[in-house]
């Protein structure tokens, strides 16, 4: 696993590859608060980026802004050089917790097919090709045998995999994943990590928010440290220094001494996930 990751880490994009996701001085006011201030960054095509920051740092807001779900107070976002809104659905979004009615009469396959709707357009029915893409997405997440089950009968992890499968069926150029590793079972965690490798092969840019600094340091090409503004953005080695982490997380950092590996750090929100970060399911 480590070897494989090491190899894929080596495939960092060439410097001349044009940035395909650009944010210029993006400012978002959400719920009356300044959620994100003057954020400027360029994410190259096919990069795997960890978006790291404490609760309330604006990670979800950043994703919603990239989806066009919240208006920009100032600044601009460009995807493939075009301003946001001129694309149909080349950006897919997997929220931390889906705000859907779980008793709705839809099957897993129906939900995943919704990822194809943007490609289908008005008045058109799914073709054999769309069903094949749905089937492939279900298989990638290991939930093909659940295809005809109603969404409400699944476990929490299976429901999350269903919505990740929907994002894959969308065949996005950019995939935004909000806290996919928070409060999930092992099967879902492994399925998600495998999907990340598939996406790298398909040259899909992934932005993934997480509290987990070790995960960010080992699995990702780039790390974006965020706390209502961009603290630092670059490779994990240059970004994850004690100074920047303290700047991002404030007092919520613990240093764990380990004889073998030297000092390791953990954030308070990582150790003791707050109410907000762990969806409670009944």
């Amino acid at each position, binding site marked *: 696993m480590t070897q494989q990751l090491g190899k894929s880490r080596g495939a960092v994009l060439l410097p001349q590859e044009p940035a395909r996701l650009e944010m210029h001085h993006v400012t978002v006011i959400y719920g009356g608060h300044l959620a994100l201030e003057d954020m400027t960054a360029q994410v190259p095509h096919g990069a795997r980026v960890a978006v790291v920051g404490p609760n309330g740092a604006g990670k979800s807001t950043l994703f919603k802004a990239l*989806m*066009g*779900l919240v208006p920009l107070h100032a600044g601009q976002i460009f995807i493939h050089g075009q301003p946001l*809104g001129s694309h*149909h*659905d080349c*950006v*897919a*979004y997997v*929220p931390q917790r*889906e*705000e*859907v*009615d*779980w008793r*709705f*009469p*839809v*099957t897993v396959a*129906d*939900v995943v097919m*919704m990822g194809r*709707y*943007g490609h*289908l357009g*008005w*008045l058109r029915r799914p073709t054999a090709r769309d069903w094949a893409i749905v089937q492939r997405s279900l298989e990638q997440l290991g939930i093909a045998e659940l295809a*005809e*089950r*109603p969404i*409400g*009968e*699944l*476990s*929490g992890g299976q429901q999350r995999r269903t919505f990740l499968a*929907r994002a894959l069926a969308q065949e996005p150029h950019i995939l935004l994943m909000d806290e996919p590793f928070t409060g999930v079972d092992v099967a879902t965690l492994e399925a998600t990590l495998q999907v990340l490798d598939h996406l790298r092969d398909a040259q899909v840019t992934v932005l993934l928010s997480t509290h987990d600094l070790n995960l960010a340091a080992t699995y990702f090409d780039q790390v974006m440290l965020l706390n209502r503004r961009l603290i630092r953005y670059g490779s994990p080695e240059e970004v994850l220094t004690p100074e920047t982490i303290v700047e991002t997380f404030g007092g919520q950092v613990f240093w764990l001494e380990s004889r073998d590996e030297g000092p390791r750090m953990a954030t308070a929100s990582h150790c003791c996930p707050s109410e907000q970060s762990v969806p409670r*399911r009944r």
Partner: protein
Amino acid sequence: MLDWLLVPLSYGFMQRGLIASVLVGILCAVVGCYIVLRSMAFLGDALAHGILPGVAIAYLLQINLTIGALVAGIAVALGIAFLSRPGTIKEDTAIGILFAASLSLGVLLISTIRTYAVDLTHILFGNVLGVSPGDLWLIGGLACIVLTTIVLLYKEFLVLSFDPVHATALRLPINLLRHLMLILLALTIVVSLQIVGVGLVAAMLVTPSATAYLVTRRLSHMMVLAAGLGAFSGIVGLYLSFYFNVASGAAVVLTATALFVFVFLLAPRKGVLWSRRPSRS
């Protein structure tokens, strides 16, 4: 037995009544699926009562009652949408205000009409046996328009009802679709007015769809089954009305309710008698 079924059909008013009941049963049930899934039963009831002033004004001006109902229904539907824009009052509050105001205006206007009692009863509880051939064409035409729209926009309405965030991400014109759904609902209610009346149309919207919801796993299946249950209730209710000489609208609604109770108790997955709830960790 065959005579028992065929005798009512020898009357022209019963033939038209049966066709109208089946059309309304199907139409209400299909539109009702979205009402049930989006918890809009209150809205359906409010729209039905909101139509009353339109009917009264049409009656006073001596024009077609259905056209009056149509205009009032669409006006109330768009009024609710306008009052409950994001950042203002909540939708159920907007519905409550417009519902009570329209009902009051309707009663006020109808109370100025001399033959007040009889007409009000027909508007409130329907008069399926008074369906004229012209009414039947209007019901059929509007039912076709509404059902065709729902079939053509099936996937758009599905994603909007299930996951509005995804609908936004797909750049669907969400407000346009919401308004369109309200207008389809208003049309459905207007069509149903003559069969089950203002007071009972909400039952026809909700009951067959809720019955279908208990035994199906996909929206398309739910719609087809609900349509079947709605049509069946319309036929059975009308026969009961013919042989027992009871109010037709009430007989149709109570047939639908009996089917619901039966399924509610005995449904394979969600039935109360099995008391096995779907598990979800």
